[in-house]
């Protein structure tokens, strides 16, 4: 039935609608650079969403846990075999995404008889020098973008734009600044997604009525306190001050308490 081109295009269109639906309730992911390295932040219920990939690479993901797991293993396999056969310096986010991950995701997306990957991926790469840090994001259809300074994943591009707009105004100098900015940006995104869900007006809601969503700090903290009570705050750092080749470390509760804004740290248990 898909031999005719327009039917294939229609099938791919249906696939987009289906996939957009799948991310509506997903937790956004925020990645920011700071003096200390790269911070990734999200909130999860049970299944973690932030992972170590290689010495200087970390991954944040949205979507179906099984799909994320499959792609995570593919990335780990590619990175480690390449690092062993050549060197750690040859394992770069750009090579993994452009020549490995993105083509595989695109192929799965366009093969309309098979199930697509229900994932959005954010890959953070700590540069050898400060200022050389970067991000790559991959959408469920295999399109990827390179970014510096910060990158976000959310249910829709409108929400992502809103988060990026908020993040642009924030100070990201110290690690504590980065943690504060990341968690508030996460709240901006999650709040926008919730509003879109509640009102059932589709993906453009956050863009069409920005005034309805308060982004003042107090409102965001109140929202975050409710989220923290129900979910686990996940923060991981590619820490350029860590000794040895592996720079990834998850931030534990005790360390997070010292880094979170005073308004939020008592809520963390």
């Amino acid at each position, binding site marked *: 039935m898909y031999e005719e081109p327009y039917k294939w295009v229609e099938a791919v269109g249906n696939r987009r609608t289906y996939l957009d639906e799948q991310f509506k309730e997903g937790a956004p992911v925020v990645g920011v650079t700071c003096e200390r390295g790269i911070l990734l932040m999200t909130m999860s219920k049970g299944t*973690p969403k932030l*992972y*170590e*990939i*290689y*010495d200087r690479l970390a991954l944040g993901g949205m979507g179906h846990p099984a799909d994320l*797991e*499959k792609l995570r*293993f593919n990335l*780990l*396999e590619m990175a*480690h*075999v390449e*690092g*062993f056969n050549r060197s750690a310096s040859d394992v770069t986010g750009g090579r993994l995404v452009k020549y490995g991950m993105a083509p595989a995701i695109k192929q799965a997306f366009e093969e309309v008889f098979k199930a697509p990957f229900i994932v959005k991926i954010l890959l953070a790469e700590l540069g050898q020098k400060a200022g050389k840090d970067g991000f790559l994001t991959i959408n469920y259809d295999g399109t990827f973008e390179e970014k510096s300074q910060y990158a976000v994943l959310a249910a829709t591009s409108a929400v992502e734009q809103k988060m990026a707009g908020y993040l642009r105004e924030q100070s990201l100098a110290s690690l504590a600044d980065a943690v504060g900015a990341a968690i508030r940006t996460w709240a901006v995104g999650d709040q926008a997604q919730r509003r879109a869900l509640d009102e059932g007006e589709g993906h453009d809601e956050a863009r069409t009525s920005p005034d309805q969503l308060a982004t003042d700090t107090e409102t965001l903290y109140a929202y975050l306190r409710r989220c923290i009570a129900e979910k686990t705050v996940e923060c991981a750092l590619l820490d350029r001050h860590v*000794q*040895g080749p*592996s720079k990834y470390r998850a931030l534990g509760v005790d360390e997070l308490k010292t880094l979170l804004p005073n308004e939020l740290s008592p809520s963390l248990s």
Partner: protein
Amino acid sequence: MGMQSDFYQLLKGQGYVFGVLGQAARGQELTTATTILAFKYRDGVLVAGDRRATAGNMVMYDRTDKVLEIDRHSVMAIAGVPATAYEMARILEHSFKYFRRTQLQELSFEGKLRALSKLLKDNVPAALAGTGAVVPIFAGYDFEQEAAKIYFYDILGAEFEGVDYAVSGSGSPTIRGILHYVNTWGEQPLSAMLEEQATVQALRLLTSAAEFDSATGGVNREAGLYPVIKFITASGVRTMPDAQLKPLFEAKVSRHV
């Protein structure tokens, strides 16, 4: 499912072959590396090695690092053919990282010991053919037992725990006796020594090995070459910098030789 946690198997699946059988050519001297030691001191385990690599009578290199950090809590010290030993270290390093990153937990200390044993077993044909014998010491922090531990191996892959100490390499017969003497009748057992005392002991042991074994390099003060000494504790692996070894050597070792 095909999601495996064993990096070595993954490599093999991609056609990688380790421990290829070969025969040493007649008259061809292979590069080897010599004295390594490890012993328990008050805070954990000290691992040390000289810096010399030789091929027959020829000194190939005097800056060899034989005490290799495999991960944040484990060290492999190598005696034997460096080419094979470095390859083993690279496989182990990637295997431990791969396990941690895929399984989201550290490989157990026992698992790490077993991984090295498997590599040695696969290397037996090359070791017996005379092209790749490696006799390593593996030391690391065992979080289940909450203690730093030492293991040594034979070329077939059997692992043995060094309860107090372990030695390997051509200079090891010299220092094995000294270690036994010091540990049994010295002023204090090795395990009671403070870090500085343990460091001085290691420097003296390697200097003694160099005295009687031409394949072990001693300290070369003119070139600023000191042995490699690492400490393993619960907080990880730490290397004693040359800047700290130099004054210790001059004050506590050189006046005795």
